């Protein structure tokens, strides 16, 4: 029980990552695969951000006390947060590229279901050899 309680953030991060991986493998619709890729990457963001927390830590910003002087208490590690900002941008860009390609596939093949596209390609290959 304590293994789950003390490491709950890692359990949830892995759970979300596995849901995303399941979606990529099992779903036939290309948009669902792209969304599942986004879910997978969201699990990774959760993993990084949760590793930044320290006991008794607060946000890494300057505070002002009554005299107007700047001070900062024990703050959480801001480095993983910065890394994940970049990773979120990367995730959005990958999703945008994937959507653009899927729109083009819809124009070219008329469908975005992976099995139908594979059938169409196999027919085209068989037709060109005949």
């Amino acid at each position, binding site marked *: 029980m304590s293994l789950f309680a003390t490491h709950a953030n890692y359990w949830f991060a892995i759970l979300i990552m596995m849901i995303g991986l399941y979606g990529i493998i099992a779903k036939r619709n290309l948009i669902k*695969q792209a969304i599942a890729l986004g879910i997978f990457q969201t699990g990774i963001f959760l993993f990084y951000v949760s590793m930044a927390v320290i006991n008794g830590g607060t946000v890494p910003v300057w505070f002002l006390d009554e005299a107007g002087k700047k001070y900062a208490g024990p703050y959480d590690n801001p480095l993983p947060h910065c890394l994940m900002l970049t990773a979120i941008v*990367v995730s959005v860009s990958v999703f945008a590229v994937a959507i653009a*390609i899927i729109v083009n596939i819809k124009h070219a093949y008329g469908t975005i279901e992976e099995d139908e596209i594979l059938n169409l390609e196999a027919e085209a290959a068989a037709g*060109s050899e005949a």
Partner: protein
Amino acid sequence: MIDQAPVLLVVVPLLAGICCLFLRGQLLPWIWAQITTLAVLGIAIHLLFRVLNEGAVTYAMGNWPQEWGISYKIDAINIFVVLIVAFIGCVTTCYARQSIASEIPRDRHHQFYSMWLLALVGLLGITVTNDVFNIYVLLEVSSLTIYTLVAMGKTRDKRALTAAIRYVIIGSVGASFILVGIGYLLMVTGTLNLEDMARAIAALPEPERNRTVVVAFAFLFVGLSVKMALWPVHMWLPNAYGAAPSAVSALIAATATKVGIYMAVRFLFTVFGPDFTFLSLSTTVGQFTFSCSGILLTCACLGVLVTGIQAMQQRELKWILAYSSVGQIGYMVIGLALVNHAGLTGGIVHLLNHALIKGGLFMAAGCVVFRLGSQRLEDLAGLSKRMPITAAAILVGGLGLIGFPLTAGFISKWYLVSGAFEAGLWPVAAVLLTGSLFALIYVWRVVEVMYFTAPPENAVKVREAPLSMLICTWILVGGSVVLGVFAQPTVALAEHAANQALTGHAQILGLRPGASGDDPVVHDEVVP
């Protein structure tokens, strides 16, 4: 300005790629891209001489100290891959003028060349950076631009779109695995700098029993295998190389997976160290011992054999070359996994040799597609009479794939086989020679159709390919022959890189004299 060279390698194509979006038309973006790639090649050659004379070159971004900021470091292993990427980028840009003009609509050329230059930014940046997260970011930059470049082949071949979406999904999962591995390493070591990370991992008591380090290694291993197209996770490669525009195929076949193998060398040899990776990290289940070396060798050998058989069954020229690429990557990984001097030298020199051979072959295939409009083997009948120079390029490149003496392929196979015998692994040597046999079979299929089959009466009347495309093809294919005959410079550079890989980790830890990568190449004997 001259000591800003490491960052100029990345900043010049970055600025040029962004500015390329303002240029309209067909010729102007190409001229801009060609000037940029020539400048990058010049910077790379300058850095080569600096590394040969002074040892490693470091550069601190933003003038931050190395532990807190991002630094770039170019040592013997880096400079080899930087030269490959810069040279291939320059030659394929020259080739791209005519090839892309026929494959991509005119109003998209500025976007195409912008993506082209940004792909070079990503590839060069991965190779020179010393910061682990910077590797991930630039990996994604190069991957995203290459996904887009592959998808732009849709005008000629609809399969480019499905190839691109498959590449997106599989490549992103691989890169995300690398990100998870980096996250675990950050937790354990608290730093993102490659050298500090190596010191921190080595300072742990018994790192092979530390579950975080082992899990980080596992995630990184799988992610890097996807990116370098090691056998079971290579499924994105055949369609992506086969359906992409010809110049894009030539560029990515010669650079993207080589940079992936460089990343694997960096992580396995410099961050984790050869002792941890190949000696300590092994588990015994019953009678079987799983070690990193064993897994790499098994995957690579199976890759050579299985993709060799698949290449023999393909009906289209670029697909034969694509499956052959996976086999050749298997050779390079075998060289890595043998962990002795000869094997590592063979693997590293094969990076350059395969880049030249495969780049040249994909360019020749592009010449065929340019004139014939088709790459199916039946349509290549009698090509030796219709397009003699292109057919000769395919023949010479094919000889390089087989490993015929006097070609560059022979040099790398020689070192790989001697490395296999030195490690006492004669089955691996048998696999290497069987791979050459398979290469002989699928090259013979193409050569037989081109040289010994008469063209049909209703064959399309074609001239030879345009001169610029032919010259670029023969620069690469001829280069592979020249490097097969005058192999000493490249082999010496590869030996220095192999030496650096095997001893670099100990140098970082201070167990050997000299800071990492600082030995200049001027002495002749190689320290084992």
